[in-house]
């Protein structure tokens, strides 16, 4: 699976570096000074690298947690995101990471303890108010779990701080560690969901939606709080019947008391990201369709977007109470 592991010399002896290397005993090991030497050069092609990405083990130095954009949240006022990894195992054609990074290699920051200190500092600063921490912005929170041990490390931290919420955003069914531990009540396991046909066309290498639903059911039975993320909403000729069917399937299995929050967001990309993605995949119908630029963002033509948002919102609210519904309109 991983043929090459690049390792920053400074973290060569870090216990997490050693653990990861032991998982890939046959991979070639290449040492570098800083991960940017491998990850950032101009002359790289994300599409080619996605065929066989390497793993880069690195140390993050600053900006461990960042404020989310306004309009992004699931009910809290203090919203932050953090990324223990850059890039994702999956290959979703709509994913903004393709337009953001030049390299498709996976960067894994091994210094969890520094993230932990930054999170605890932020929790302390928030005092008695709740803070929300989102993981899964620059990577899938669970997909690399067997390698990173991310949840095993961070969930106990949040269990100690009930005023701090953690959202794990995922399409993965790597839920074994979650099933083996006591549910953390201030943690939301948030699954991204799209109709089966859209998943098949645009979400390469991801578990099928039916598999994600099975994983969610298991988590529900164990008492974990779930998040439902219908994001991005993808428009096409049959979208109405497909989203209606998706909602029927989801709410047949997932019961509202287990659901912490439901959100949706239309397909939108920063203009520069769209330009890069179009160059990488000029033959992709997703990028060729009825998109237009508004305020530096590329999205479906306004009429289409409004029609789609209104339709999907109305259908979703047949199942979901308004107080747990958070449309994301960034």
């Amino acid at each position, binding site marked *: 699976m991983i*043929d*090459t592991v*690049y390792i920053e010399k400074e973290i060569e002896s870090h216990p997490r570096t050693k653990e990861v290397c032991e998982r890939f005993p046959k991979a*070639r090991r*290449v*040492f*570098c*000074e800083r991960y940017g*030497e*491998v990850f950032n*050069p*101009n*002359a*790289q*092609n994300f*599409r*080619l*690298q996605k*065929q*066989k990405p*390497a793993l880069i083990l690195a140390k993050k130095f600053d900006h461990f947690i960042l404020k989310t954009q306004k309009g992004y949240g699931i009910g809290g006022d203090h919203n932050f995101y953090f990324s223990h990894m850059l890039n994702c195992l999956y290959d979703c054609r709509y994913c903004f990471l393709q337009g953001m990074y030049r*390299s498709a*290699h996976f960067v894994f920051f091994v210094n969890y303890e520094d993230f932990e200190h930054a999170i605890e500092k932020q929790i302390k600063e928030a005092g008695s108010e709740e803070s929300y921490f989102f993981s899964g912005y620059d990577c899938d929170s669970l997909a690399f779990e067997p390698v990173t041990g991310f949840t095993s490390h961070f969930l106990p931290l949040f269990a100690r701080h009930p005023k701090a919420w953690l959202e794990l955003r995922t399409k993965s069914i790597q839920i074994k560690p979650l099933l083996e531990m006591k549910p953390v009540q201030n943690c939301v396991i948030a699954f991204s969901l799209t109709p089966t*046909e*859209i998943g098949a*066309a*645009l979400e390469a290498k991801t578990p099928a939606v039916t598999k994600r639903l099975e994983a969610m059911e298991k988590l529900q039975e164990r008492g974990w709080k779930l998040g439902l993320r219908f994001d991005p909403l*993808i*428009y*096409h*000729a049959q979208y109405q019947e497909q989203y209606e069917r998706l909602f029927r399937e989801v709410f047949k299995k997932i019961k509202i008391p287990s659901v912490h929050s439901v959100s949706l967001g239309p397909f939108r990309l920063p203009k520069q990201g769209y330009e890069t993605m*179009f*160059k*990488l*995949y*000029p*033959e*992709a*119908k*997703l*990028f*060729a*369709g*009825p998109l237009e630029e508004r305020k530096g963002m590329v999205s479906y*033509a306004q009429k289409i977007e409004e029609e789609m948002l209104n339709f999907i919102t109305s259908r979703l609210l047949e199942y979901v109470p308004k107080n747990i519904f958070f449309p994301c309109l960034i």
Partner: protein
Amino acid sequence: MPPKKLMMPDIHFVTALPCEAQPLIEFYRLKPAGRSKSFEIYEAPGKHLVLSGVGKIRAAEAVRFLHEFAGKIRDQAWLNVGIGGHPDLKIGEGVLAHKITDQKLAKSWYPPLVFEAPSRTESVVTVERAENKYGESCVYEMEASGFYEAACRFSTAELIHCYKIISDNRESSTKKVSAALVERLVRQNLEMIDEIVKKILTLAQALPHAEIPAHEFQKFLERWHFTVTEQHQLRRLLLRLQTLEPEAEIWPELQLLTKSKDVLNTLKDRINSLPVAL
């Protein structure tokens, strides 16, 4: 608008010495194709070889020369084939570079190995003079950094690689390296070199090929005046239309228009009117 036929990129070889080049020239049946004061070029359909001379500066200049000679086409495959020294590896073993370091500049590059490497891979260090101490466990040679940095200006890193054949080690010093030995070592590695070439070219086929044929685009520029920005918009819209409606016959409709803006708007309207498929 018929889509352009898929094109396999060319392979560009860069070698420092005639004795490194000769086996490749024979194996790929390359013919003399041109020369400047500094460089000789050999070619066959889909293949070019430039003889750079020794050293990283000459290697970089040779890359630029070959890029221009071959029509300045971007995203071609590049392979530097040469010899190098390693403390322990046996004479004749060939390695692909997974890291290239310019010793003088203390700068490194990391050729992404997106295909399964058919040979051993090693760190390669580019030095100014032949190395006889073999301080580190890596391949010492004299061209890779200049070659790689220059080629990265004209192609994408995944398609640019260095293959080095061990010509000397602690047991057998550079003094024993002769032109005849080098030629023999390269000849012994031809099958491996060819396998690497095939892997790079196969990988290159995953690059996007969607393009508007130049003569099609030219028709628009001759009929209407498009600003540079509008030309970008036009190309983008034509690509989108080609993806959504490959058999579209839009020219008759456009021909009635007098302004470039109307052409762009008509293309946009056509795209927006098409049923949206996944």
